[in-house]
């Protein structure tokens, strides 16, 4: 929801902000042009407020509150850059950075700089382990305390359309929401396990192709850290050929059924390497089906030499 001048007046960092009823503190911050970081929030998904990077200080509240889901109320006094806020945001960044490969989350490095976060303060990230899928709630081993336990694990490649690199998973729940009741209603994945062993999983960690997954890729579209990635992108990255400076991005309409979904085509070397949809689109709300998401391969297949290699002008 975009914040508009309205009926609720509150103070954000000493400035008076007016927002409409139902607006969140995040809306209020944005209305006041205060840059507020988010990871697990998305405009086309229900806020789960789990990443806690957006916490702000609310006068009278015992703890900090998540801006993304806390509704604005008249007379609230909000601080977005107090020492407490800065400490919590710094620690959230450090806790994420020390446990998750955040290198493909575009905001992460600048935010670490902004908040002085040094994830390595908690020790080097532990080496990959594939025990997570076998974990049992309430049991863990304290490994080498000199290494920071991490999500590092092997990439799951069980189909030709997209890969799951859960070393990059920060458990923002976006994929689960997109697969579930916020869009697709397929419920092929959930958050399984508990605590630090929590993980995104199909039932019994069954391969996607044996699960309820319908390969709409709405999870991929929602993933903020590159944990879920087009196989084409994964392969290009693995080959060292992914180059965003040589990519173009074009909006068009899906070539399949008559719903008219907007496809955002990312093209490198005259090949479509990623397909998304704008989350503010009235037709798609950012979501696609398997054909729109992955079904554009036929254009490339006509040209084994993949054309001229020049992005269109």
């Amino acid at each position, binding site marked *: 929801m975009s914040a508009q001048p309205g009926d609720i007046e509150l103070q954000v960092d000493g400035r008076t902000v007016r927002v409409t009823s139902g607006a969140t503190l995040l809306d209020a911050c944005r209305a006041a042009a205060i840059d507020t970081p988010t990871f697990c929030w998305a405009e086309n998904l229900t806020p789960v407020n789990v990443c806690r990077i957006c916490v702000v200080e609310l006068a009278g509240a015992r703890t900090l509150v998540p801006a993304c889901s806390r509704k604005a109320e008249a007379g609230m006094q909000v601080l977005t850059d107090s020492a407490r806020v800065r400490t919590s945001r710094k620690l959230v960044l450090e806790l994420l950075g020390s446990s998750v490969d955040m290198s493909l989350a575009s905001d992460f490095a600048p935010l670490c700089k902004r908040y002085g976060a040094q994830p390595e303060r908690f020790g080097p990230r532990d080496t990959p382990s594939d025990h997570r899928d076998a974990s049992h709630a309430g049991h863990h081993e304290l490994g080498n305390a000199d290494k920071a336990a991490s999500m590092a694990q092997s990439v799951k490649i069980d189909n030709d359309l997209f890969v799951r690199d859960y070393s990059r998973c920060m458990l923002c729940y976006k994929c689960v929401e997109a697969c579930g009741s916020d869009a697709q209603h397929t419920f092929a994945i959930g958050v399984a396990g508990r605590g630090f062993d929590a993980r995104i999983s199909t039932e019994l960690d069954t391969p996607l192709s044996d699960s309820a997954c319908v390969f709409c890729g709405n999870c991929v579209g929602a993933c903020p850290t590159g944990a879920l990635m087009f196989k084409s992108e994964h392969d290009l990255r693995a080959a060292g050929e992914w180059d965003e400076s040589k990519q173009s991005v074009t909006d068009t309409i899906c070539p399949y059924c008559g719903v*008219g979904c907007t496809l955002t085509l990312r093209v490198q070397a005259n090949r479509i390497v990623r397909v998304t949809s704008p989350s503010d689109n009235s037709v798609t709300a950012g979501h696609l089906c398997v054909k729109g998401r992955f079904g554009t391969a036929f254009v490339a297949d006509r040209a084994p030499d993949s054309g001229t290699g020049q992005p269109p002008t």
Partner: protein
Amino acid sequence: MLWGSNARETHPIFFHHVLKAVKRGAKLYVVDPRRTTTADWATGWLPVEVGADISLSNGIARCILEEGLEHKAFIARATTGFEAYRASLERYDLARVCRETCVDESLIRRLAREYARAPRAMICWTLGITEHHNAVDNVLSLINLGLLTGHVGRYGSGLNPLRGQNNVQGGGDSGALPHKLPGFQDVENDALRANFERVWKCKIPPRKGWHLTEMFEAMGRKELTALYVVGENPAQSEADATHALERLAGLECLIVQDIVLTKTAAMADVVFPASASFCEAEGTVTNSERRVQRVRKALQPPGQARDDIQILCDLSLRLGFDLRLPSAKAAWDEMRSLSPMHRGMSYERLDKKGLQWPCPDEQHPGTQFLHARLWADPIEGPTAPFHAVEHSPPVDLVDREFPLRLTTGRRLDSFNTGVQSSAFASPMRRGETIDLCPHDAHSLGVMEGEPVRVISRRGRVVAPVRLDPGLKPGLVFMTFHFPDEVDVNLLTIDATDPRSGTAEFKAAAVRVEKL
């Protein structure tokens, strides 16, 4: 109400909107012979017998009238032909309807009540309604329901065909119909035609042409000897494929313009390799909600492939007329100048979200729903007519020799003849199958995955069995996504609705033989 539509698989993103509504408490009724994944989400599933849609809709109408739930004021002010319609329903007592449709009376009554009483109710349909020999009557019977209850012309109500292709609507909008010029202007109307002739600087034949089925019939009569096919694969998409292939083969000249070498293109005398319109060219498409949206060039077309406009212009030049290669935008602007309903839709305005026609001027916001005029006081324009329509069972009758009813449709990850969709490696794809209910499979002594022969009065194919408990005994299902491996259209019948030209793909009679 989704009628003859498996939107969960065939219009997945439209179905997201349905699911949103269901989550908020909307009631979803699904009318489909198969218990599809769409039906799995329904408050009520009406397992209608294939081809008994008119009987069912007439039965629903009769329940509505019996219980006095019709919208009397709307009927009086905005419709004609109600008394004749009411009289026609006399023949549809519920006993008959239940017998013909195989749907429980209680379910029919429940749907009738909920549909009539709902503050807003919508009927959407797909090919389950239109791929029948009486397609137009099927549609009219649904329109009757909308008129009877006043569920037309208002936000959240209405009658909506869900378009099967990304620009089937736009093709019609821009005059790719045998009897219409762009903007649905009648080609036989001299004044309208004159507008086009003035701008196009040529004479337009003053009579309507043939639709697809009529063309094939004309080919049979050798009245049509040259065919120029643009972006269509009739060699595999026409019902009764044997028949269709014979006719294509008998042409004196076949030109195919397509993005890949389809089976039709392989038969052609000349092939024009084209660019993929959605990503290698500029232009517009129109979706099911009449929203005109921009497609844009993101890729260079491969090899010698050319933009459709360029191909047409080049051809025209060889034929002696210089179209001067307009840009997509210039061609669009010309259409805007000739088609009042498109007039307000400049490329600039279409940029992000598109616009829904009619959009008569550049200040007009577009039209979210049609027929609001029926609620204007006084009513604007002509009244809406009821049409008394009669049940007419499928042409291809089930009998002892062909005891199973074959119906065809799409699956989520494939599309039509597979020209586009076969190129991506869908983990869900299992190739063509003949779907049987476990009971029929048991009686035939066949198992999941076992190849069987499927025989109709027109042809035979071999396909493996897939068990689907969502089918009722006697009903079998196939797609037409894998014609190179299993040409299901060898089985289908080309019995066609004379008005729409659509064949009865949804109802063939077959038998299944163990190999």
